[in-house]
């Protein structure tokens, strides 16, 4: 793989993850990737294809099929000075590692009062709309964002993926790096060549507007943008904020936007109850209540255990762009 240092390259989200991992392995001997089938197969989405040949099996580790130890061993490596980039093959399989991520990684610095740190990245593909059914479609962010000590990143564009994955690898604390699998090959964009980082915890206004603030992340940012552009044709002005980072969350950007537009719609795929939108709503209600001209609204996944396999069931779970546009119109008109 050639490494250019200036200009930009057009690539999709898979290529952005792949290129960033490649450059990290090339640049820093402390880094390694580990997970199920990341070696000879090159990961199930071919993200690490060819890595084992170039970097060797010691830094491209095909682990046993055991998620708790993928996380736990990566923690031990990080405590001992390496920069492991661990992979959970699908977010749906992260539950056995919950103990290690929540109980250990997130608390290593705190528990030891700074004596030990845990500079670890755990990447995992999440999200639905890909006929993945119950165990290949879940969103897991709300299960983890309650946990201080963890950082959670969920970028949706290739340039953001590169900048934030670089920042995650450089970060001295554990980062859960979420990749929406439906965007992997669907989303293309320009990516600056060479090394750069985007700070974790900074949202991005992807579409400026002044009549409504829409906060989203992941796949739905793309649909929200499409809806906002449709409304633009009718003279309606919607601001779309791509959170990019879920923890820490960029309250400044959200509050500034809400104070300007005076209305807030939150859109996410994860189910509504106790989701990311609940925290954003509470924060805005606490800090900007008197700036609001309409009740806050949340457009989220339904409160059911999972999306079904049949197209009808999956479609019912996922939110179509038309429904986003409709909600936006209602809120602008309120």
């Amino acid at each position: 793989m050639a490494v250019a240092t200036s200009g930009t390259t057009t690539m999709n989200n898979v290529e952005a993850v792949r290129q960033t991992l490649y450059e990290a392995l090339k640049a820093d001997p402390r880094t390694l990737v580990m997970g199920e089938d990341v070696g000879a197969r090159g990961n199930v989405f071919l993200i690490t294809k060819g890595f084992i040949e170039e970097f060797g099996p010691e830094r491209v580790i095909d682990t046993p099929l055991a998620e708790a130890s993928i996380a736990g061993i990566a923690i031990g490596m990080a405590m001992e000075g390496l920069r492991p980039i661990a992979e959970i093959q699908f977010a749906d399989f992260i539950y056995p590692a919950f103990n290690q991520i929540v109980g250990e990684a997130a608390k290593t610095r705190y528990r030891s009062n700074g004596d030990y740190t845990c500079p670890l990245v755990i990447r995992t593909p999440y999200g639905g709309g890909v006929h993945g059914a119950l165990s290949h479609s879940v969103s897991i962010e709300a299960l983890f964002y309650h946990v201080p000590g963890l950082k959670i990143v969920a970028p949706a564009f290739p340039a953001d993926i590169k900048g934030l994955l670089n920042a995650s690898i450089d970060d001295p604390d554990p980062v859960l790096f979420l990749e929406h699998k439906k965007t992997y090959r669907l989303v293309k964009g320009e990516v600056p060549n060479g090394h750069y980082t985007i700070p974790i915890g900074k949202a991005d206004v992807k579409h400026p507007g002044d009549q409504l603030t829409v906060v989203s992340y992941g796949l739905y940012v793309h649909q929200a943008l499409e809806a906002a552009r449709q409304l633009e044709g009718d003279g309606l002005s919607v601001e779309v904020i791509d959170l990019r980072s879920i923890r820490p969350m960029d309250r400044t950007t959200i509050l500034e936007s809400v104070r300007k537009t005076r209305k807030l719609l939150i859109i996410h795929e994860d189910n509504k109850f106790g989701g990311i939108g609940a925290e954003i709503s509470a924060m805005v209600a606490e800090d900007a209540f008197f700036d609001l001209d309409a009740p806050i609204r949340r457009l989220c996944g339904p409160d059911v255990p999972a999306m079904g396999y049949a197209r009808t069931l999956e479609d019912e779970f996922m939110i179509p762009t038309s429904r986003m546009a409709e909600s936006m119109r209602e809120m602008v008109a309120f």
Partner: protein
Amino acid sequence: MADTLARSRHDVGNDRLLMLLRNMLTQRAVDTRGFQLNRQGKIAIAMGSEGHEAVQAGTGAAFVRGKDLLYPYYRNTGLILACGFPLDDVFRSQFARATDRTGGRNIINHITAREMGIASISSIIAAQCTHAVGAAYALRLRKDTGRAVFCQFGDGATSEGEWHEAMNFAAVHRLPVVFICENNRWAISTPQSKQMVNKDIAAKAVGYGMHGVIVDGFDPVAVYSTVHEARERAAVGGGPTLVEAKCYRFLSHTTDDDDRTYRTREEVEAQRKLDPVPRFEERLVAEGVISEAELTALRVAITELVNAATDKIELEPSPEAGDLYSNVYADTYSPWL
């Protein structure tokens, strides 16, 4: 049994024997003090390792300071002392003082000493086992040879899935780890027979294709020899070993437990007769390594050290309330309040 002792005696000089004895006596004195402090209402909880002294002294003697890494568990006060952890810091942990290495955050015995290679642990059973394996992988990747990682745990811990995963990965990669099971026959109130069908935990090593060895956990010299051998093999690329040191927990699990509710006094008394501390004292006196008078003097000296440490640390300040907010992340962190 006597045979094993005689054989393993060969490469253990008097200096090391005295070191083992000193550590065992210190463990006993620290345990006793912890329970006294708890009864006096000065510390919230105490957890003794009475019955584990020989395992921990022997293991600590095999640990090479400045090279090896230790991933301990919560019952390892004696072991960390044997690895060089200061006595004062043991009491700083017990009193949860600001001067404690975790700033008074962690419950007793959950210490951290990175510069000594002693890892920070949580109370989560077996969670440290995968960390030990990851640390060993780091040594391997850096071609940092001649070093080993010690991973400690109890018999109950071997029922955890994470323990299995750690053993398996270490074996697959032939990592430099010595897994040491302090089998005291009980996990709080659950006897070994309810944890597993196997009588010998060391037998589990076979399933991973790893060396497994049983050692008398009441004999510090045998533990030292066994762990030393496993450590030497690990350090030169010979792969991991599971050492099962059979011992006993003489006290209740902690000061919050009452073992009379689940095990007979007869069982405990029978084990007490094998108490490794007086047994080792008698042996060193019989072999002329230490005289009765010197032994008495050593006991007095240790009690004085423990008294001095207790008196000093008790006066040290508690952490500031505001310390709750530090070291959440590397950068300054202001929680959403």
